[in-house]
């Protein structure tokens, strides 16, 4: 092979190799030529673990890359975001930096301000960067996975502690007891099954009774329905209304009677005093009679007077008999 062919072959190989490398690099970097790529700047207090080359995402779709990250004045960090051709930012945009995966991959999410998570710290960061002197998209960093993993680490520690306690508690004797318990439980389950089977037969009988009872109830309900129907028809003919009117009148009469009874009761209350004084006087008289005071007392206490009175009565009775027998002896009537 002559010198010129060597030169051509080497040149072609070098050019081909370079072209291949450049093409692969551009392809992996998703470089596009002839199309305008918009660039926006976002301002943060902290960019977390975000790095140049991380993707920019809008509504979950990759829309560009982080072009550069630089420290700025007054404690700011500015990040330049290159957007793919044709990508338009949402209205009132903010940039949120967050972990994209559990493997340390971060991304910048461009979203509407109201689409930001309802976290006070995030809103404080956004407000802070919004009030920055120079115009740039406000940005904030969402809590990274490290904070979550630290919490998860604590939980894992607790779980480990609990599992250790379980391991200590679940020794051979516990296992035996558990086995025994399971066996007992199995026996109990068998017994329960048998009982249920037995009771199910009783339940069938009860169900039959209940069914009959329900039939009776249905019949009763039908009778009640008929009665209600009749009552309804009676109501519709005005008998009930008449009964009610008569009842009302009876109630009025009863009320009048009650009022009269009240008046009588009041007058009885007045007579009660008089009666009481009469009784008291009578009682006094009776005590005097009993003591033999006065004429009546002497009459009751002196037996001779009783005897005289008794003989007097006998005399009077004989006199009366003689008078009836011989009236002319005692009575002389003359006219003229």
């Amino acid at each position, binding site marked *: 092979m002559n*010198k010129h062919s060597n030169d051509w072959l080497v040149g072609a190989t070098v050019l081909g190799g370079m072209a291949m490398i450049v093409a692969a690099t551009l392809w992996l970097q998703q470089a596009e030529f002839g199309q305008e790529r918009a660039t926006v700047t976002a301002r943060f207090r902290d960019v977390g673990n975000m790095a140049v080359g991380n993707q920019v995402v809008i509504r979950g779709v990759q829309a560009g890359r982080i072009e550069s990250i630089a420290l700025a004045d007054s404690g700011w960090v500015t990040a330049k975001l290159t957007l793919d051709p044709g990508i338009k930012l949402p209205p009132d945009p903010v940039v949120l930096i967050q972990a994209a995966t559990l493997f340390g991959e971060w991304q910048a999410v461009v979203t509407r301000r109201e689409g930001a998570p309802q976290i006070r710290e995030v809103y404080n960061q956004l407000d802070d960067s919004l009030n920055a002197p120079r115009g740039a998209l406000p940005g904030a960093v969402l809590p990274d996975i490290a904070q979550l993993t630290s919490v998860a680490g604590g939980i894992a520690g607790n779980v480990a502690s609990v599992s250790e306690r379980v391991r200590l508690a679940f020794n051979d004797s516990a296992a035996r007891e558990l086995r025994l318990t399971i066996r007992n439980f199995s026996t109990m389950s068998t017994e329960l099954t048998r009982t249920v089977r037995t009771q199910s037969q009783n339940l069938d009988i009860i169900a039959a009774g209940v069914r009959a009872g329900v039939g009776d109830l249905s019949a009763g309900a039908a009778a009640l329905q008929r009665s209600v129907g009749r009552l309804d028809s009676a109501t519709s003919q005005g008998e009930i209304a008449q009964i009610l009117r008569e009842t009302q009148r009876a109630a009025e009469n009863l009320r009048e009677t009650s009022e009269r009874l009240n008046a009588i009761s009041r007058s009885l209350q007045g007579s009660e005093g008089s009666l009481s004084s009469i009784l008291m006087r009578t009682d006094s008289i009776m005590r005097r009679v009993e003591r033999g005071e006065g004429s009546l007392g002497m009459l009751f206490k002196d037996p001779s007077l009783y005897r005289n009175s008794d003989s007097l009565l006998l005399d009077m009775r004989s006199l009366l008999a003689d008078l009836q027998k011989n009236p002319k002896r005692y009575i002389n009537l003359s006219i003229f």
Partner: protein
Amino acid sequence: MIEAIGRGTREAMEAIGSAGRLTIEAGRALRDVRTWGPNFSLQARQLGVDSIPIGILIALFTGVVLALLASYSFTGAVPRYLVGTLVQKTIMMELAPVLTGLALAGRVGANIAAEIGTMRVTEQVDALETLSFDPVAYLVVPRVLAGTLMFPVVVGVAMFVGLFAGWGASLMLLDLSTPEFLKGARLFFDGFDVRYGLVKSASFGFAVTMLASTAGLKTRGGAQGVGAAATSAVVQSAVMILVLDAFWAMVWLLGRAR
């Protein structure tokens, strides 16, 4: 034992010294373009163009195996698209430069050491000096330049082929979709990955050709000496590739990781 340690230290220092002296002489000889220029394209073809099939073969199988290995390793919560990430990073930054460098160390290093060693034992090198040719400019510089320039080309092709081989294996053997593989490959891709691999491979090319030329020029005796020189060149080149690989990782990657 003390004597053996001293002898070993002396030989190591002599090797480093002679390689350094040859490097300085080659640097000086770079100005003598008329001497090394005509030989450059021939050496570039022999060391570079003719080595491309080996680089492609190595990258092809490496890409396939790497995709399968990644799929085997990534289980459970690890997303499958990271197969693309692993293939891209590993092929571009490590396997394509190192494996291709080791393969070329055997092929190119042995070739150069045997060629120059034969010329040394047959006194052709002495004849060049007699004819007022600088043997370093005539023999060493074109080979070192060709190796330094063409190793990155071969490694670049190997990177490309390895990446596509991994892609094809993911599609055909792993039921991974193209968007998934590309997502993984693009996820952590950085232009630095390519630069790192190419610069590393250029250093490998320089080291292999320089060590092989040194071994060739130091050849003594007959065919046995030539064989020993070729063996020494291959061994030294392989070791130097691994040393340089660690060197670049510590110098360049460690700095970026911080």
